């Protein structure tokens, strides 16, 4: 197992290299000039001399390969550069925003997992009942629903009409527990719905499939309580495909919440990404993309390790 993990980690290097070249080059062909974005409303006052001096200060006057190598070297050694916009180190900019994104991601993950697993298991156990039908059609709706429109409806109902939940900004849960949860309620629900629907469908279908297996019949035949059969034998074995979905969602935490964060003025990484994209803030975008890529690759690896843990027949030694 250890060799397998090491092998997988080594395989990430070429993938990350391709991404780094791709994102670096794409940033350089952005039509928005970063210098003009920095100058903002005063950009008309920019003289060629000032522009040149700024280019030199940001290191943009150097040949592209040199720029790339010095950026890459910085990424590896932990110096991720400074934001063009506010000159703060990218690392501290991200560090102040990451907690907000992570707490939202955790909350929406819990929504997806609890709602998805519960409805999926109930629907499978009460197959073809009214409950099953309601849950299954609910999941179909959840998958087709644009998450931002669902968020819009939640804002309209709870924020505007009833006025009982905040629709703007975020508080850290470990600093202001009540207020933090109140701020998180709507965006977490909006982000979690789609995941809940996907998990529900997968849980239902794979649990149904497992319930038809011989070893379930054996477990029943040897007189185990139904509850024990379901929880110990069926559920564990039906979790494999569910784990895949969870892994995919886990990896997409940073990239998945861009629209929702923007809608709720959430001070997280997703909103920062949109902001930085619009202003051609190269170091910020490049760092966010690389960080997201690492998150996705690591989540994929964790998924495969989880597989081996859940199903001891799976061995990666070969």
């Amino acid at each position: 197992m250890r060799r397998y993990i090491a092998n997988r980690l080594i395989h990430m290097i070429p993938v990350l290299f391709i991404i780094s070249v791709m994102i670096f080059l794409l940033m350089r062909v952005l039509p928005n000039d970063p210098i003009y974005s920095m100058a903002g409303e005063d950009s008309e006052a920019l003289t060629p001399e000032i522009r040149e001096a700024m280019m030199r200060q940001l290191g943009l006057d150097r040949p592209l390969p040199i720029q790339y190598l010095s950026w890459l070297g910085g990424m590896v050694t932990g110096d991720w550069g400074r934001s063009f916009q506010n000159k703060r180190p990218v690392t501290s900019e991200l560090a102040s925003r990451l907690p907000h994104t992570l707490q939202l991601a955790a909350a929406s993950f819990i929504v997806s997992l609890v709602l998805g697993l519960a409805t999926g298991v109930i629907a499978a156990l009460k197959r073809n009942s009214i409950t099953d039908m309601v849950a299954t059609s609910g999941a179909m709706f959840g998958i087709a629903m644009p998450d931002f429109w669902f968020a819009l409806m939640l804002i309209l109902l709870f924020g505007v009409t009833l006025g009982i939940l905040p629709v703007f900004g975020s508080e850290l849960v470990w600093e202001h527990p009540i207020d933090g949860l109140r701020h998180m309620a709507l965006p977490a629900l909006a982000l979690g719905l789609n995941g809940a629907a996907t998990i529900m469908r997968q849980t239902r279908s794979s649990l149904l499939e497992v319930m038809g297996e011989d070893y379930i019949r054996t477990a029943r035949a040897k007189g185990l309580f139904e509850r024990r059969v379901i929880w110990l034998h069926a559920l564990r074995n039906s979790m494999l495909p569910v784990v895949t979905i969870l892994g995919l969602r886990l990896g997409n935490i940073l990239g998945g919440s861009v629209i929702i964060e923007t809608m709720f003025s959430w001070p997280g990484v997703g909103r920062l990404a949109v902001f930085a994209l619009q202003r051609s803030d190269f170091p910020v975008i490049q760092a966010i993309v690389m960080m997201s890529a690492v998150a996705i690759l690591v989540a994929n690896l964790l998924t495969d390790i989880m597989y081996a843990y859940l199903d001891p027949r799976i061995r990666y030694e070969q």
Partner: protein
Amino acid sequence: MRDSGSATARTGTIGRVLEALPSDNIKQLLQHKLSAIGLSYIGLILVVGIFAPWIAPADPLAIDPINSLKAPSLENPLGLDHVGRDQLSRLIYGARVSLIVGLLSVGVAIVIGVPLGIIAAYAGGWIDHAIMRMIDAMIAVPGLLFAMLLLLVMGGSVLTVSIALGINLFTTQARLVRSQALSVKEREYFMAARMIGTPPWRMLLFHMVPNSIQPVIVQATLGMGFAILGEAGLSFIGVGVEPPIATWGSMLNLAFVNLRSAPWLSFAPGVAIFLLVLSFNFVGDGLRDVLDPRLRGRI
């Protein structure tokens, strides 16, 4: 393998692809109730999109600032937006963008994904390795961010949005086709064809492609739903098809901005996106049941 079928050898690849959908399968598909509902709804939206200029009660771009944000009335059943454009007409024209972007981006995904998957499987070795690493890289970049970046570079039009979304979609197509093609490579008929000295282009075009293409069809249908959602999302955050063209996503964006003063603007475009995506998912699920009975009822 000319002897396998008289008609197929002559009609070539397209004929073989169509043959993958025999007539009784289509009947079966229509019997699949949800697919039938989905298919009819898509047909309806298609008609609405094509005949938009005749159906729409007003010009979707004509402004009427004096009546801006007017509530729904008999004259304007869905109300007017912030510059006084008729919401219903914009909704009708918006169907065009959703359908065209859906079709085009799936087309882009197939045009990039299928050849890559086939080449990777057929060539094997370092070519396979290089293609797969590139696909791994594409998958590891958050899709929406990457699409936004591409659109900022290319500018927002129906074509560029479709390209950006197609680039997001092709990885699934390529992986599906590759794994299918790898199994074709091991089949007896394929080895037999190679042994009798069939030239490589013939092997690819007449044996590998037709036999590897089936999962593409299902994935393409499900991809339509993804693309329609993606286009709406991109337009919603303002990097999609550029205004003033009416799209469902940009209509929702304007509804969001005017949520307090004109909440009615936020309903119809959302329902429209939702129903169209739902329909494509219904059809995709139905197709999967028909084309791959092993998966029936599973996902």
